[in-house]
């Protein structure tokens, strides 16, 4: 019996030993978990948080990391530049069906504040990092101020006045922060960008190029002031009444001072640029001289990584990770089996996003005159007419597009970019293939996967100045700045002196220069274009349609294409409420924020 009792005691003892490990319920050993203490305990980890803040902040409006609320398309598809792409895509509905609603906007409202929160977490905690020097910490704080300014600038353009957040909230904070006035929002952007300017360096070491510089801070401020001066905001009455809250969407008066402020800010960007090897690229022409190297210079400015015209870019290496963004821009069908690279197989989403005739007409011919394109209802013209006229187009058209039946101009002699390789067919009965298809951002790209989205390009500030000086009545200055951009594109100088006529020419220059760069969608609204509902954002779109010779059907064989006509295609929705974006219903229902009018 005794033996048995010993034995039982031993069993119980063993069980007890095994079970009474005190730490049994402690968090098990794990790897890769980073807490707020460890993030800011080393500069390596803190720099990762910084990278995340950059990515989150700068992707506003871009198809990456949840940057927008409209999937599977680009803003080109709803701004009168191009067709909206696949009919099942969200953007198609936004544009062609019922416009924007409180559940469908081009921006993800809450993501703005996600980005801002990330920025403040870093600026509030960066001082804790032990192995980072004080200068670097100062830069980081300035960068975070700059990124926050960038986001606010984007919100200002999209929504008008928005809530001002100036710290990392904790759950016990009072979160009932209403929308600020338009003026207070602008002041916040200026304050942040001034702070960023003060703290940022003029340049970064080679491997860090892509982070904010003093020039970028100036550019944020200049763009914000330019939009503040434009008629949508710089007005006594808003586009639609918001009653007592009109000051959230309108300054309540028209002031020329806003244009003067814009001039100062834009001149500052150009001055900074000139002293830091950043300027518009023009390798051939002088003042008032058409640039003979226009295709190369404009192509380089919009496509080649780290060219001197780009002040800030959103850089992506598409080979390294399968980011969504390039799907919407890469125009090449090629694949490993057909001479291209594998990533290009993702191109399918751009098949039905061709340029519309309404936009094609905006382009000049290479000699600076207008091209004679067929009107809807005109008799069919032979394909050779199309081919000839396309070859006559200005260099910027050729840098940004390929035409049906013609090898891409922007990658001359490269078989990857031959029409045979990149075409997705021409319009026969359906719609979407457009008059031409985009090759923008891929000038002399070959199979390069390094993709840079220009966030600030120096030609913007010259056009800003042209616009502002024209509004201030300074025609000479306006023309001087306009022609810097116009001549660079290989076109003879513009000499128009009538203010209204010149305004339209400046806007035309804007449209061409920044095709597919997410600008026109906002510009036409802030300019309050009178034709916005007739073929710009709303109204009748037109598109070429082609006919094959009898018995032929291969779009890659130019000789098989018989003729083309211009036809009415989609007729998208426009409503004045769409001047500004809606705040999502889910936020409005929390009864803190005021909705923009009409939604």
């Amino acid at each position: 019996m005794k033996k048995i009792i010993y034995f039982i005691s031993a069993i119980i003892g063993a069980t007890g030993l095994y079970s009474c490990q005190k730490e049994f319920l402690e968090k098990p050993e794990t790897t890769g978990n980073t807490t707020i203490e460890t993030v800011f305990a080393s500069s390596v980890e803190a720099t990762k948080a910084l990278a995340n803040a950059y990515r989150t902040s700068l992707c506003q409006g871009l198809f990456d990391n949840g940057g927008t609320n409209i999937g599977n398309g680009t803003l080109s598809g709803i701004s009168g530049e191009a067709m909206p792409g696949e009919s099942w895509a969200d953007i198609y509905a936004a544009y062609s069906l019922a416009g924007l609603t409180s559940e469908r906007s081009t921006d993800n409202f809450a993501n703005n504040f996600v980005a801002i929160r990330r920025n403040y977490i870093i600026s509030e905690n960066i001082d804790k990092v032990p192995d980072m020097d004080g200068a670097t910490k100062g830069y980081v704080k300035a960068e975070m101020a700059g990124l926050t300014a960038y986001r606010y600038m984007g919100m200002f353009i999209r929504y008008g006045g928005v809530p001002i957040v100036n710290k990392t909230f904790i759950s016990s904070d009072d979160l009932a922060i209403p929308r600020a006035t338009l003026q207070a929002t602008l002041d916040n952007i200026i304050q942040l960008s001034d702070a960023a300017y003060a703290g940022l360096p003029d340049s970064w070491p080679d491997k860090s190029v892509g982070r904010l510089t003093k020039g970028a801070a100036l550019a944020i401020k200049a763009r914000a002031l330019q939009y503040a001066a434009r008629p949508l905001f710089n007005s006594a009455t808003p586009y639609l009444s918001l009653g007592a809250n009109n000051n959230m969407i309108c300054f309540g008066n028209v002031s020329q001072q806003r244009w003067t402020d814009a001039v100062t800010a834009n001149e500052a960007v150009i001055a900074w640029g000139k002293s830091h090897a950043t300027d518009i690229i023009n390798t051939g022409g002088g003042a008032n001289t058409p640039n003979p190297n226009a295709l190369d210079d404009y192509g380089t400015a919009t496509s080649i990584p780290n060219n001197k015209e780009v002040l800030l870019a959103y850089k992506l290496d598409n080979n390294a990770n399968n980011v969504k963004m390039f799907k919407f821009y890469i125009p090449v069908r090629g694949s490993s089996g057909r001479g291209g690279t594998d990533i290009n197989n993702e191109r399918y989403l751009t098949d039905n996003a061709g340029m519309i005739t309404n936009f094609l007409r905006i382009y000049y011919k290479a000699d600076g005159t207008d091209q004679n394109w067929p009107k809807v209802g005109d008799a069919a013209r032979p394909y050779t007419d199309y081919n000839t006229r396309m070859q006559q187009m200005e260099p910027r058209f050729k840098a940004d597009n390929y035409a049906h039946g013609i090898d891409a101009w922007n990658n001359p002699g490269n078989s990857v970019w031959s029409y045979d390789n990149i075409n997705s067919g021409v319009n026969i009965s359906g719609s979407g293939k457009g008059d031409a298809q985009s090759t923008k951002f891929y000038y002399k790209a070959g199979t390069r996967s390094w993709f840079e989205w220009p966030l600030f390009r120096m030609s913007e500030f010259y056009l800003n100045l042209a616009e502002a000086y024209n509004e201030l009545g300074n025609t000479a200055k306006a023309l001087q700045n306009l022609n810097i951009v116009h001549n660079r594109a290989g076109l003879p100088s513009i000499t128009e002196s009538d203010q209204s006529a010149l305004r339209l020419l400046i806007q035309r220059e804007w449209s061409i220069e920044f095709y597919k760069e997410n600008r026109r969608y906002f510009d036409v609204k802030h300019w309050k274009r009178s034709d916005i509902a007739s073929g710009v954002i709303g109204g009748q779109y037109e598109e070429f349609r082609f006919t094959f010779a009898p018995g032929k059907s291969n779009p890659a064989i130019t000789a098989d294409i018989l003729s083309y006509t211009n036809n009415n295609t989609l007729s998208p929705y426009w409503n004045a409420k769409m001047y500004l974006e809606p705040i999502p219903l889910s936020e409005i229902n929390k009864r803190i924020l005021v909705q923009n009018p009409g939604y």
Partner: protein
Amino acid sequence: MTNQYIKSTVLSACLLLGTAMNIAAQNKSLRDSAARDTARIEPGRLLNIKKINSTAAVSSVSGEALYQTPTMNLTNTLYGRLNGLSVNLGSGEPGYDNAALGIRGVGSLSSTSAGGYNTYKVFVDGFETNLNYLAYLSAAEIESISILKDAAALATFGMRGANGVIYVLTKRGKVGKPTISFQARTGIQKAININKPLDAFGYASLYNQAISNDKGRVWSPLYSPAQLQGYRNGTGTNVDWFDKVLKNHAPYTDGDLSFTGGDDNARYNIVMDYANQQALYNVKQTDATSNSTVKRYNLRSNLDFKMFDIFEAKVDLGARIEDRKAPNYSGANLWQNLSRYPSNIYPVRDGATGNYSGTSLFPDNPVASINSLGWFSSHRRILQGNFTLKERLDELTPGLYLSQAYSFNSYSQSNYSKTADYARFFNGQPGGPTNVLTPLRATGMIPGGQEDWKQLMGTIGYERSFGKHQILSALNYHQSDFKSDGGADAYIYRYQNISGRANYSYDNRYVAELGFSYFGADGYAPGNRWGFYPAISASWIVSNEEFLKDSKSISLLKLRASAGKTGSMDSETQNSGRFLYQQYYNNSGTFYTGNSSITGNSGLNQNILANPDIFAEQSLKYNFGAEVTFFKKLSLSADVFLDKRSGILTRDNTITGIYGTINSFANLGKVTNKGFELSANFSDKKGDFGYGIWGQVAYNKNRIDYFAEIPQPYEYNQQTGRSIAQNYGLVSKGFYQLEDFNANGTLKGGPVPAFGLVQPGDLKYQDLNGDNIIDEKDITSVGKSLFPEMTYSFGANFSYKGFDLSALFQGIGSSSVNILSAAPNQIQAFVGNGNVFPVAQNAWAYYPDQGIDTRATANYPRLTTAANNNNYRASDFWVKSRDFLRLRNVELGYTFSPAFVKKLSLSNLRFYVNAVNPLTWSRLEKDYGLDPETLSAYPGIKSFNTGLSVTF
């Protein structure tokens, strides 16, 4: 007597405190455990309580009853057998055919992603396991499966209990001479329902309508009359992809051999089982191709020993190998392609070259997908080993015992495949996809995931009776340590559970029970890891009272009630909210910089906002039950329950977006779930003729009381106050007609839909808020939730001499499904280059010149080839009742007479034929061609089988 009574009360109290080691008492102990096993014991934890004395709500079914359904997957044998368990048939793909299970409806918000199913926990022989282990147990190794439903039954489960427990007991050896029995069965399996698209002619005719609708309703056919004629007379391409890929039926076989026997000192029950199932794919088994198959080998050895009158030991080994093999193409994609690829896209093989056809739009030729890509196989090994040692300490005090138990459960999978590829051709040319002919290549054996689970228990128990008093009590310590492949935060799960039960009965008339669990989980903040879960219950066996004791009519009348608390650690939050008390950063995105070369800077991002107060959700359960038997023939039982959930881990949606993170969670959610279960059973025997009929019904209804919902503009938009997983949508009111439009195509009046321009034949909706716009503000609850509110079953069995016949019917009520989202490929015609099914045959169309006018009779919106946000969105037009009744099982058997069997030196011999799921009554199937349980992908399976069982 009084003295002893007090003593025993003190004793049991002390036991519950875990300190009673040497208190002496002198009454005789209960009968020995072997004898107790033969009594009718209610399956449950820690204590062996006779059914009659139980205070808990438990439904049980024997392994023999489950064996009646020839299927490899145990979850597919449970239909209609356990009252309170909802079972939904899933895919019939061999090896991937788990049914969805749910006990007493949906109690928690944290389970909506699976429609409220699969929230239960599984315990086998007292140790926790999971679905991986449960699903492919063989019915031959199972003694019983029970569902534990109320607070009394779940008292000891702590944070594992709130959503019910499936409690499995495996077969143990019985004292007696060695018995060998052999069972085998084989049969054919067929799809319950295959919804085929229209043929090429039907497709092309309707496509002409669709494209014309898209072109301003001007007749602009894509297919010419000559082409249509060609489809009709067989000269055009017209491929029935289902026909080419599937065969009519597939074989199923299983067999098992059991050995059982032993004496008082050693008993054994050993089961060996083999099963083999093949899929409906029409593909041969060769070196390069394989049908989808699964083979299962089970071995279970349960041994009981007794030593020195003190020790009792159990050694249980449950081992299993599962071998799966399938064509090297995702089954989900294959079934999607079968539905999506129109009949006229191309012939199976390209005429000119004899290669498989394929285009960039339809790249994966379904026939080639199963024949030309090679195969994939997985090899799963599962072993559960349990060891229990019990010491009877009657020497110290009669009825006192200790027990220790250890369980090791190991699961691992490795994968092996042989892959190939084929070139796609179209009209004699490469068809678009750039795949090239690639010869068969083998991969090495590569890991496919593993788990191991170590559990330990220590028990101190005390069981005595004193005259009319009987006490059963035990105090248990359970420690669970689970490891699996998983994320850094998710691969180890640990808990500790100190639990106890004390069941006291007086004179077999009054029973009271106390149970508790003090449960600690590793996922919560230090100091906040432990929860206390008490339960109290009682029953009154009225039929043992003097006034009923001798009643002829009422042979049993029992009432019981329970109340108590349980918890749940599960949540749909990332990792169920584990370790949420700390603020984490995760790797997120890459930001690129660089001048001469580009550098990816990896990012770190703040994860879900830390909340130190996160804890398990809690459930307060109340149950009242009654059982009555009349004339020993008709038995009825009824249970009503109420389950109040609180502290459900929920995203706080009320926080404004300017907070900068929506990932803020807290124990906010509240849900009420209530319902009842009724059952009736009548059996009788008249001479050689025996018969029985039975039926049962379970009803459950839940309501979200609070879940920090995003504030909604109108009450009818809200989900708060409605059922979990309720369907929401617009309310439709017919189609727009020609008269609704002006000549220029604009609407004449009435509310304007915000989802796109409409034209005649589009769906019209009700403007609930009267703002003249149809938008999200007009969405309200439509139909019911996916999880059925009612599950019922009934059946009958007859026996005459050697013959026996039985049938089992099962059905559900009050369940809806949004067919648009559940079966998009079959419902949305043409959209996204899709196909068209019979459901769209009578779409709204008006082309008088073509003789097409369905305006008056249409039951489908006008066809379109483009996406249509107005028509194809959730509305009552697409949310349909899922109610159905199914004949689950019918079996006819013949048992040879003992005299005949004896001549063959056998003790029992039976042959039978049976059918599983042979008949279904469902409106969904009738109106939309959709099976109400398995709406898309691999269909549910019906089978016809024959088998024999022999006992030597």
